[in-house]
């Protein structure tokens, strides 16, 4: 027997999300959306609970999670940074901006800083091509980002060193 343990509150939250969608397998993507919205990411145990509630194989849940780049199985940083690599942003230097984030944070695309403050991703076109190159931090949008802006953005979101948490 394989035993999977999760905090009661997490299981309850997932059960509720699934119930809201009538435990319909066809609602899997919406359920995963909400679950990730609530928990920040979709680790193995969470997928197991969702599969059980919808009475579908967990392999199918995993298939959907790994197909869509929006879903993630690793926790994101407190401030998730996304650099747009769409065509317009790309031609206006998004790659060098992304490289600068990698260098300053010492993480790769998909990585999280050891203190859990920042994670770095690239995405395709946020529909703000007039502002290219675009960077998102959480829901905040930065346009016409230059290399010196990268440090400013990081500083803006860094907590004071004295903050113990």
């Amino acid at each position, binding site marked *: *027997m*394989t035993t999977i343990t*999760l905090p009661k509150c997490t299981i309850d939250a997932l059960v509720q999300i699934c119930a809201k969608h009538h435990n319909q397998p066809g609602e899997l993507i919406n359920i995963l959306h909400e679950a990730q919205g609530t928990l920040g990411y979709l680790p193995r145990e969470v997928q197991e609970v969702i599969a059980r509630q919808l009475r579908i194989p967990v392999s199918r849940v995993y298939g959907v999670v790994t197909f869509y780049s929006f879903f993630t199985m690793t926790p994101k940083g407190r401030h998730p940074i996304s650099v747009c690599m769409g065509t317009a942003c790309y031609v206006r230097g998004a790659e060098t901006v992304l490289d600068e984030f990698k260098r300053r944070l010492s993480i790769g695309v998909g990585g999280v800083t050891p203190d859990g403050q920042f994670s770095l991703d690239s995405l395709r076109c946020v529909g703000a091509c007039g502002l290219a190159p675009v960077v998102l931090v959480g829901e905040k949008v930065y346009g016409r980002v230059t290399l010196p802006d990268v440090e400013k953005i990081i500083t803006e979101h860094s907590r004071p060193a004295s903050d113990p948490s």
Partner: protein
Amino acid sequence: MEQTISLQIDRRQVEVPRGTSLLDAARGAGIHIPSLCYMNLRDMCISNLPASCRICVVEIEGRRNLAPACSTRCEQGMKVTTTSARVMNAQKTVLELILSDHPTDCLVCPKSGNCDLQEMAARLKIREIPFRGEQSSHVRETTPSILRDMNKCIYCRRCETMCNKVQTVGALAAVNRGFSATIAPAFERPLADSECTYCGQCVAVCPVGALTENDHTNRLLEDLANPNKTVIVQTAPAVRAALGEEFALPPGASVTGKMVAALRALGFNKVFDTDFAADLTIMEEGSELLDRLSRFLAGDKTVALPILTSCCPAWVNFFEHYFPDMLDIPSSARSPQQMFGAIAKTWWARQIGVERKDLVVVSIMPCLAKKYECARDEFAVDGDPDVNYSLSTRELAGLIKRANIDFNTLPDEDFDHPMGESTGAGVIFGASGGVMEAALRTAYELYTGKKLEDVNFESVRGLQGIKKATVALNDFQLKIGIAHGLGNARALLEEIREGKSEYHAIEIMACPGGCIGGGGQPLHHGNSERLKARAKALYSEDQGKTRRKSHDNPYIAQLYEEFLGKPLGEKAHHLLHTSYFDKGKDIREQ
């Protein structure tokens, strides 16, 4: 009345029912459009139509683009061309693109010579692969039953269809994207750690070398070459009904005598029959059925009914994973393969004076799960398995060819005594419904004390997914159910779990059609007529036997008299029965 439409394919007028695909319409008219991912076993409602490979493209007059014939429906007045240069060029490019990310190690590929992709490349005369870019790099996996080499996968999704829609096992799914896309268990864990039952239906439909069996041929050759070993073989009932297909004999040709001769020629010390152990299984399982029934009829409400057959190792794996709350329901009787091993390494070994360590028991099975079953810890004594290993029908055919044995001209030979003797009841184990029919023949006579005049129970035969029948045992109406294919089994099991099951006894076989359609059989290439022909071969062999009830097997009687005592007795319990394990998932709160 069914609406028909007419269209033109390659300037031929074709009439088909509305809704027919172009591919089916063409094939019906004798025009064979090549395909890779397409699979359709209509009799069993099994279809895989993802239209993902695009090999079957055709030209339709008035349409700008070529269309995939498998997923394009015929329309009235359509004009279709399957032979144009444009079609052939497109097919070639499609195949070159598929091959651009395919290893070219055909020389050492286990599927070489039986590979749809290789055949297609030969047919389209591919002489070079012009596109060579990034390559997939998945890890190969070896399980006791199945080998996975997903670098060879062409994403036809047939395995996924079998695993999910037909078997409802759900071990395999399409995961990731781009070059890391693959068909894998959840979290890309090894198949061995997944819910996989090793039924081998994925292997049976894989068009390429991505999923193949764990081949024990070379291991067998080492043992056969070792003068200190006594090597004996048992052959499952379904093998004899399909082996001939590998030697260009028509499906359903019964090759029992030739198979025995071939095994003897290969150098086995004794050629025995799993059918003998099937008769033994009936003695134990039938007695268990009668025991549970009589306690039930005496008013015992705790008795577990319906009783479920336990011959099929993939089915055992399935209920251990998915119905761990019901482990007391299946019969505790071991499968015929394991009963054979247990008796061979005790009773028979003592008879001929061979030590256990020097005796190698090999089985020839239509099945891949049997390989796993041999390796289960509970079927070994001090680390020595009762059945050392199992070869599939396909592996045996390969070995016979390799040994240069001219199979078709072999004379018919008989099995050795005593464990080669079997009744017709043992033979029909290989077809869906056969175990139940065999059990009924014995249970009827033991229960009523009367002679069963007509031993044929036609209602339990055939390819219908779930079959049911009622048999009168004196004034008691015994209700039986039969399912083949794990999806059908799941339906019956869920009824039991909900307390709605009407049956007293249920037979389950994991593979569609039963063992005749097993994962180790010659590939049916989507042709269910082959399965029907194989079943027919078994029933006619049964018909031809003088003894057709397991309890009439004189060697079984001798075995109980000399060694086992009585069915369900202490010794029988120790050697012929087993217990099951909870492999389910338990989600707990912290």
